[in-house]
């Protein structure tokens, strides 16, 4: 369905070329250069206001850069068909951003439905996705307010995966969860990623989460990319900002590093 977007299957999935973004004369992002490879989980790590969510929203063009260029699947974002671009990219936000007036099934099936899928196909896709994210199929007829935070987040992930996008953008998806649920979802996230091999851009301010889930960590500070390193290199890095982070999170960070290869 979205095959026409893959101009170069070996090239990076997402590229930022000298990207800057200003809102009301305030520089939020400056001179960002970053390549995100296919199938990698790039974690954007940084404080609030460091520009990580802005970076994420530039990918599906919820915002447009003031200068520079964002490329998705080798094609410049600016000229792409906005609606097609977004339907080819899954988007997950905190608390899932679910539609409160839709059941779980309608939430997950919305993009397939507007893409013109038949009822049966949507129904079986919803079942498949619920299973994939570890939910019972009975949940399909419930409304978001009848779910726990963890369930809502799972539905949010299922919804983002509905039309089988190659790229997933996740904006602090586990930020609002209690530590136990968060741990559970992180585990499932890793298992899911090993099966699906999506290109994932994941925003968090939690170093532990970044080390655990990321194949690479891009550290941001005050609208600039400080460094982008694998979790292991990140811990060893002598970059002042990176070591500040490692210090702030204290001991035990080395034991949680994602050594998933890649």
């Amino acid at each position: 369905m979205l095959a026409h977007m893959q101009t170069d299957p070996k090239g990076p999935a997402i590229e930022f070329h000298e990207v800057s973004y200003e809102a009301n004369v305030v520089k939020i992002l400056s001179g960002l250069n970053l390549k995100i490879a296919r199938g990698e989980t790039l974690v954007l790590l940084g404080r609030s206001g460091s520009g990580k969510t802005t970076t994420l929203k530039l990918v599906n063009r919820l915002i447009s850069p003031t200068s520079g260029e964002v490329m998705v699947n080798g094609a410049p974002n600016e000229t792409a068909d906005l609606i097609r671009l977004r339907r080819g990219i899954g988007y997950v936000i905190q608390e899932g951003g679910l539609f409160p007036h839709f059941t779980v099934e309608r939430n997950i099936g919305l993009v397939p439905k507007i893409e013109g899928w038949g009822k049966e196909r949507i129904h079986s896709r919803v079942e498949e996705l619920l299973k994939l994210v570890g939910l019972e199929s009975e949940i399909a007829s419930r409304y978001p307010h009848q779910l726990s935070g963890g369930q809502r987040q799972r539905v949010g992930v299922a919804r983002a995966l509905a039309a089988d996008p190659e790229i997933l953008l996740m904006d602090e998806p586990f930020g609002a969860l209690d530590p136990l649920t968060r741990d559970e979802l992180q585990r499932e996230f890793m298992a899911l990623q090993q099966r699906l091999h999506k290109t994932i851009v994941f925003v968090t301010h939690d170093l532990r989460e970044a080390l655990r889930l990321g194949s690479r960590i891009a550290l941001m500070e005050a609208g600039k990319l400080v460094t982008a390193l694998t979790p292991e290199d990140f811990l060893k890095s002598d970059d002042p900002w990176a070591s500040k982070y490692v210090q702030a999170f204290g001991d035990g960070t080395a034991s949680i590093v994602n050594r998933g290869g890649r």
Partner: protein
Amino acid sequence: MNIVRFMLQNHTQVLELTLEHLWLVGVSTALAIAIGVPTGILIAHRPRFNKPVLASANIIQTIPSLALFGFLLPVPWLGARSDRLAIVALTLYALLPIIRNTFTGIRGVDPAVVEAGRGMGLTESQLLFQVELPLATSVILSGIRVAIVISVGLATIAAAIGAGGLGEFIFRGLAMVDDRVILAGAIPAAVLALAADFIVGLLERRLRTP
């Protein structure tokens, strides 16, 4: 009891004037919805229009109704028929609650939900019809409810310019200094207002998002 007797004796006229009243209120409310809801949507999406539009609707609301009927009388097409004029005036009064509630309802939709929808690739019209309007429905309906109740009351004044409706009884009763005649207009008007309030309220609760 003699009020009841009076109304029963004149039941054809009570019915006729009630229907006229309903016609004035119904047509003006329908027009106000047709104009007010799209206007409310527009100003919710284009913030720079919201102040002037809401201010204008507010100013209309402050014009005394009898004066507004009088002002509109010399307008060429409008002045030709009094019910036409009454409907336009009632529409103008009904606009404010409808525009304001549509605006508030749409602005009140959780921005995270709207952004999630946009990020998923919904077009602006899909976003409006699938997300924003359904989530704003109960607020919009409560605006319509207020508009109807105001209109039922205001429509009694339309009799002053000969547009008919239950105001006929009220004005006639005032002239005759006969309470029974006044009440023959006032009671059905009050019942209409309560019934409309109840029905739209029911609709509002049924359509409220879970």
